[in-house]
């Protein structure tokens, strides 16, 4: 199970600063079990956002946000509500947030930090997408994780090694993660984010959650239920 925690409300509201309206996307899988993005938490979030003066254009909780195909399908009935929103707030693990960002042509904000994959990698196969860093930066990177997408896990931008959009290491096998981030943000007209992102000196201690979080897939059910 992928274990997440909700980001502090202050941080989330900071992300939503320029947005008046938002669509809420939760996950009925691990995020529901972690009590970070199930129906109840989405309802609570809606209340908190409305109290902060935001318009919530709609919300849904999908099964397995970590499967990109599910996200695309699941959002079809909500296309109007998503279109009406300035952005989408995703309450799930880092894989789910990235699947949403890859499926929606809108700014996608992360509402959670992923603490542990608890032995799972999510359902969106084909790549490792989250390294459980405990302090999700997807807000600044167009919903593409630089820890997994960049060979060096760089956090403050592209290194000088990229050529033709490929990584300096194994260019025939690896895209440059920061090139993907740049392209995504350019398409969304949000390159300013790269300039505004605070200099990140990562707290790697947050990648070391208590052992029971790492080792007990049913941790959340066992401890929090």
């Amino acid at each position, binding site marked *: 199970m992928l274990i997440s925690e909700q980001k502090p409300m202050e941080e989330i509201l900071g992300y939503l600063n320029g947005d008046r309206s938002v669509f809420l996307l939760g996950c009925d899988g691990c995020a529901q079990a972690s009590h970070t993005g199930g129906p109840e938490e989405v309802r609570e979030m809606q209340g908190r956002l409305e109290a902060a003066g935001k318009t919530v254009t709609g919300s849904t909780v999908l099964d397995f946000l970590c499967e990109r195909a599910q996200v695309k399908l699941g959002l079809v009935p909500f296309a109007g509500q998503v279109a009406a929103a300035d952005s989408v707030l995703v309450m799930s693990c880092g894989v789910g947030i990235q699947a949403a960002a890859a499926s929606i042509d809108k700014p996608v904000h992360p509402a959670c930090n992923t603490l542990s994959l608890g032995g799972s990698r999510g359902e969106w196969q084909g790549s490792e997408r989250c390294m459980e860093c405990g302090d999700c930066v997807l807000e600044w990177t167009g919903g593409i994780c630089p820890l997994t997408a960049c060979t060096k896990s760089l956090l403050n931008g592209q290194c000088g090694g990229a050529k033709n959009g490929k990584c*300096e290491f194994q260019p025939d096998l690896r895209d440059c993660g920061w090139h993907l981030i*740049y392209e995504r943000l350019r398409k969304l007209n949000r390159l300013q984010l790269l300039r505004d992102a605070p200099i*990140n000196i990562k707290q790697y201690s947050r990648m070391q959650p208590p052992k029971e979080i790492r080792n007990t897939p049913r941790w959340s059910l066992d401890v929090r239920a």
Partner: protein
Amino acid sequence: MKLTELFRQGKFVVTSENGPPKGTDVAEMLENAEAMRGRVDAVNITDQQSSVMRLGSLAACSLLKQRGIEPIFQVTCRDRNRIALQSDLLSAAVLGIENVLCLTGDYVGLGDHPDAKPVFDLDSVSLLETVRRLQNGHDLANEELKGKPSFCAGAVVAPEADPVEPQIIKMEKKVKAGAQFFQTQAVYDPRAFESFMGQVKHLNVPVMVGIVLLRSAAMARFMNRNVAGIRVPDALIEEMDKAEDRTKKGVEIAARLIREMKGMCQGVHIMAIGTEKLVPAIVDEAGL
């Protein structure tokens, strides 16, 4: 002396580069450095360039400093975490080293120890920020220092990267983090460089154009294929191809490029990659 001082005086700053040996025999490295004495303002000492294990940059910088040749301490984030990086910066300060160049570093897989654990705890931007914090008397854990270092901190940028925008965005970040000068990746197209300098004018930071001495047409083609951010125009490749004396031709092209770009920037960084003894000839021919 800090390079910032030279820029302040309005001097067109000339630097070069020297790679430490793989092993403890420093005779050749010192000979190369000696050849540049008085001809360049400072000499960069590379830090395990291309991820190949060598003698350390810090020790080599100290050797140069003892001999009165101004070193620039290249520091990469590939091999050391923030504890070791900060410690090495303090060590450099007490050894009298005044210029540091903050780099991310190549990926370990490109070098001769591909099985090594890549570190990248910090990167070029956060390393610059680290230098700044140390200079303000605190380390990254916000602990107070007993005696603080003072550096001129530089960084690098690739003007001919494609696309160049992510590089410029990162350059802006580096300036925000405290970069006081930039060395560039090799530039072979003065027009492209002019356009780049136009795009970074707002940053108001000294830029030293990078010149890599061409040794053959094959080397130029190799760089075009494999080295990020380098584009040698066909006309130059052809010139090299036709040259009878390739060494002379390489020097001539390097000097010509410097003359053409001198007016656009604040200095030049000459990379002769193993043929440092040719640097004075380039400097002479460029009229520096």
